[in-house]
Every structure is written in structure tokens, then in C-alpha cells.
């Protein structure tokens, strides 16, 4: 009886705390939203005639989503319905000379247990244009992986709320989104065959410890001794067709404690992705397919050395022909281990349909529904710590999102 009362009390306390934080979140978001809206209107009003080469360009966005899922929690406590999906960014770019500019973007987010509103620089770059065939970027640069990795953070430039998660997983944003180092880039005009653009980079990764810690594993130190990679992109002369090959290689070293024993683990990884996009006047067709090779070596006998290759891809169609409304659909697939592609918990099929509605020129709303088969996207820690294979493979999630930007 005492236990039941105690559980009841804990349950009520959790609901109370949840409501309390929910109210604070809503108030904070409303204030930020009003700020962004009023600031954006002011900037738009001034923008047309005041921007000059010696001014600072400012842009920002603030987005809030509501998620509601059936059968499984995804990203947050979505079965109950959750507002724990907030993203905001603010950037400044200063053009110091015709061929030299500096800039940075502060980014905050909270998506379930990820982010927790800790502000960090999304990118912080000095960009020196030397010549068309060879130029340089120094600092924290977004990683050119596929067509959309660089724009994962801001959904202002796309119709869908979530990019296909098989290729651009939010949970892996730490090692996918930006690298600290140097980037070489250039462009070769080929005449009627179009042009080729290359991007090469090398450096290290900023890694957030909280992203790899959990209730059972404490990670005390992370280190990325190297990351390097590149993207080669060909585009036809009228930009109708483009194709790209991207690759990235890095190693993540972790010191972790599990059941009181401290060990270290090395995770070398190589990612490869092929991309094709075809644009007509109003349609955009995109397809991307890639494989990730991840190895692991550990000083502990708990985790034997080994490696796994996963594959992932998607096909997508967006329609841009209606003023202010962009509908679209994609089908994404993920196999966590290509030697065992259909094992329960090891695959994910995702059919997403979405529509974006631009209410004003700096405010839009999105509605998106994902029909899922498989559980490989899911996080056991927000699903009662059940193994992925034990979760219901047929589930779905609805996302409603609004974003203001300038």
C-alpha cells in the first residue's frame, strides 16, 4: 500500500514537474517568437536599401514543434504528445573585403534528451576566396555530406520538418554536422557539361559528452584525433541535374565507466554517400544512398573488437509549383547491419508526407506524418529501456512545427 502511494505520489510529482517546465517553455518560446518576429519585420523593412558591403548581415530562426506518436516514443515522450522540440539559431556575417568574410552561428536546441538548450557555435568561419578553383575556410565549418547535411539544423530551407533520418540522423549530429579545421573548396567550369565543385576538409570534431552518456554508462572523456573527408559535386549547366559523391573518415576515442569499471574504446568510422537530384520548374526529385562502416576496439573484454556496416538511403519528391505551399513525400530506409538486414530492431522503413505553408515571408508552419515499419530509429532509453527488437515495429509520428526567421 505504501509503495502504491509512493508510486502515485511520484507519478503526480512527475506530472506536476512536467507541467511546470512545459509552462516555462511555452512562456520562453512565446517571448523568443515575438522577439524574432518583431526583429525580422524591422530587418526586412530596412534590408532593401541599407545593406552594404561594410555592414554586418544578421539572420536567425526559431522553431517549435509538437510531436505525437503512436506505439513508440520517438525523439521525446511523443506518445503523450510533446513540445520538447525546439531549435533556434542566430548568425552574423561580416564581409571584410570582396574576397574575405567572417561569420558564425549560435545554435540552441532541445529535442527530447538532446541538446538541452546548451548554446554552441554551429559554424564559426573565416572564408578566404583566393581564386575560383581554390579557396579556403578556417574554423568550424559545416560538413558537406550529401546535399543536405549542412542545412540539417535550420529547416527554413526545406519543406520537411525532419530530413530523412536514415541519412541525416538527428541523434548523430555531433559527428556529422561540423568540423573544426580547414576546408579547401573550388569550382571548375566545364562549358556545356556544366561545372564541378569540390570540397576537402580536415580537422577534429567538437563532441558533446552528454550525447554519449546514459544512465548506465558514464563517459568521462572524448577525443577525436582526426576527421577528414570531401565531396565532389557535378551540376549540369542549367542546374537541372546534379550528382555528388561524399566521404568522411574519423575516429572517436572514449573513456567510459560501466558497472564501476573504467575502460577506453576507439571507434573508427568511414561514411560514404552518393547523391542525385533532378529539378524541373516545379518538382525536385532527390535520391541518396550510403554506407557507414564503424569499427570498435576496446580495452575491456565486455566489448569484443569488431565492425559493422550499415546502409541507408531515401528517395524524395517536393513540389514547388504552388505559391506559399510546398508538399512533398519521401521514403527512407535503414539497415543497421547489412549482413543481417531484416533482423527485428535492425531496420527502419519510413514513409513521410509533409506540407509547408508560408504564412508570411518570415513565418511558416509545417505538418508532417511518418508511417514507420521497423524500430532502428528508436532510442530504448525513452521506450522503457526495452530492446529495439521488443518494440512494436509498426508505429507512426505526427509533427506540427512553426518557425519564424529573418
Amino acid at each position, binding site marked *: 500500500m505504501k509503495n502504491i502511494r509512493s508510486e502515485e505520489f511520484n507519478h503526480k510529482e512527475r506530472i506536476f514537474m512536467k507541467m511546470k517546465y512545459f509552462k516555462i517553455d511555452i512562456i520562453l518560446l512565446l517571448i523568443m517568437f515575438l522577439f524574432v518576429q518583431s526583429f525580422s519585420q524591422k530587418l526586412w523593412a530596412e*534590408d*532593401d*536599401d541599407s*545593406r552594404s558591403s561594410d555592414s554586418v*548581415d544578421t*539572420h536567425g*530562426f526559431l522553431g517549435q514543434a509538437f510531436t505525437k506518436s503512436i506505439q513508440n516514443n520517438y525523439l521525446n515522450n511523443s506518445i503523450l504528445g510533446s513540445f520538447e522540440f525546439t531549435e533556434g*539559431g542566430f*548568425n552574423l*556575417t561580416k564581409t571584410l573585403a*570582396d*574576397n574575405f568574410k567572417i*561569420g*558564425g*552561428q549560435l545554435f540552441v536546441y532541445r529535442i527530447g534528451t538532446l541538446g538541452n538548450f546548451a548554446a554552441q557555435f*554551429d*559554424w564559426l*568561419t573565416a572564408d578566404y*576566396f583566393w*581564386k*575560383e578553383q581554390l579557396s579556403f575556410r578556417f574554423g568550424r*565549418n*559545416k560538413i558537406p555530406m550529401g546535399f*543536405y547535411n*549542412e*542545412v540539417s*539544423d*535550420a529547416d*527554413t*530551407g*526545406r*519543406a520537411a520538418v525532419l530530413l530523412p533520418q536514415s541519412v541525416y540522423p538527428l541523434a548523430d549530429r555531433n559527428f556529422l554536422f561540423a568540423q573544426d579545421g580547414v576546408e579547401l573548396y573550388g*569550382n571548375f*567550369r566545364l562549358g556545356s557539361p556544366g*561545372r564541378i*565543385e569540390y570540397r576537402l576538409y580536415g580537422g577534429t570534431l567538437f563532441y558533446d559528452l552528454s550525447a554519449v552518456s546514459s544512465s548506465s554508462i558514464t563517459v568521462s572523456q572524448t577525443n577525436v584525433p582526426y576527421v577528414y573527408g570531401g565531396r565532389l559535386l557535378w*551540376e549540369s*549547366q*542549367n*542546374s537541372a541535374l546534379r550528382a555528388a559523391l561524399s566521404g568522411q573518415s574519423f575516429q572517436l576515442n572514449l573513456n567510459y565507466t560501466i558497472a564501476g569499471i573504467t575502460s577506453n574504446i576507439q571507434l573508427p568510422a568511414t561514411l560514404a554517400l552518393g547523391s542525385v537530384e533532378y*529539378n*524541373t*520548374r*516545379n*518538382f*525536385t526529385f532527390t535520391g541518396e544512398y550510403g554506407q557507414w562502416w564503424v569499427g570498435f576496439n576496446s580495452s575491456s573484454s565486455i566489448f569484443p573488437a569488431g565492425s559493422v556496416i550499415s546502409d541507408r538511403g531515401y528517395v524524395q519528391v517536393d513540389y*514547388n*509549383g504552388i*505559391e*506559399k505551399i*510546398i508538399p512533398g513525400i519521401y521514403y527512407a530506409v535503414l539497415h543497421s547491419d547489412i549482413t543481417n538486414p531484416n533482423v527485428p530492431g535492425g531496420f527502419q522503413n519510413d514513409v513521410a508526407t509533409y506540407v509547408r505553408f*508560408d504564412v508570411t*515571408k518570415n513565418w511558416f508552419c509545417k505538418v508532417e506524418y511518418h508511417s514507420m515499419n521497423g524500430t532502428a530509429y528508436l532510442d530504448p532509453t525513452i521506450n522503457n529501456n526495452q530492446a529495439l527488437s521488443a518494440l512494436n515495429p509498426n508505429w507512426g509520428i505526427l509533427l506540427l512545427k512553426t518557425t519564424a*526567421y529573418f
Partner: protein
Amino acid sequence: MFRFICCILFLFASQFSSGDQASQSFRVIVNAHNSVKSLKPAALSEIFLKKVVVWPDEMIIQPLDLPADSAVRIQFTDTIHQRSMAWIKNYWQQRIFSGKELPPREMKTDEDVIKFVMTHQGAIGYVSDKADLKDVTILSIDPK
């Protein structure tokens, strides 16, 4: 159902038909000292999307846009980029928030564009065909 499928097919087929049949109601202008006198629509599109950023003499290109709701810009987008305004807007949003590039400077009027092009050697802009043009070079658009 059959009608619905026909409508969808018609809508789809119409995307591939040529859209630059409408008469061109804009002029593309560059600085009078610019040696370039003619460009293809595809090359112009690359310039205004900042995919190509230097003139043949290595001078930095400074493209100029008119406001997004301007009829001239809408026609320029349709004829030169052969894309919808929504596509163009998304393209620039992706460039802005990835820290790669800023969109062309947006001028309020034809006169602002002309004034800027007159005074900046690398500048390129487009204006209404009714604009009073002097001391700038009108580019011929080579459709081939």
C-alpha cells in the same frame, strides 16, 4: 478516378514544357567597363545563384536582385532560373544558415540597380525594359 489521374499526369507533363515563351520584359545590365557583352541564360542563372562568382578577368561578380514580390524579379526567375520563387527562397535559406553564402543584395527599384551598376565594376543586375538606361551596358541574352 480516371480524371484525377489525368489531371496529375497533365500537371506533371506541364513541368517539362518550355516556359520561356513569354516575352521578356527585363534587361540585364552590367557596368560600362565590363568586357562581357553576352551571356547564356544558364550562365546568368549561375551568377545570380552565386555558383559562379568571378568574371573572366577574375573580378568578383556583384549580382543584384529586385524585391521578391517584384513582377520583374518573378519573370527573371521564371525565364532565367526556370524555377519557382519558392525554390529560390529555399536555396538561399540553405546557403545562409550553413554559412556558405549570402543572397544577392536586394535593391528596391530599377533606379537603385542602375545607380549601383554604374558605380561598381563587377556589378550585374536586371531591370524593367521600361527603365531609363544610360552609362551601363545592356547584356544580350544568348538563348543557345
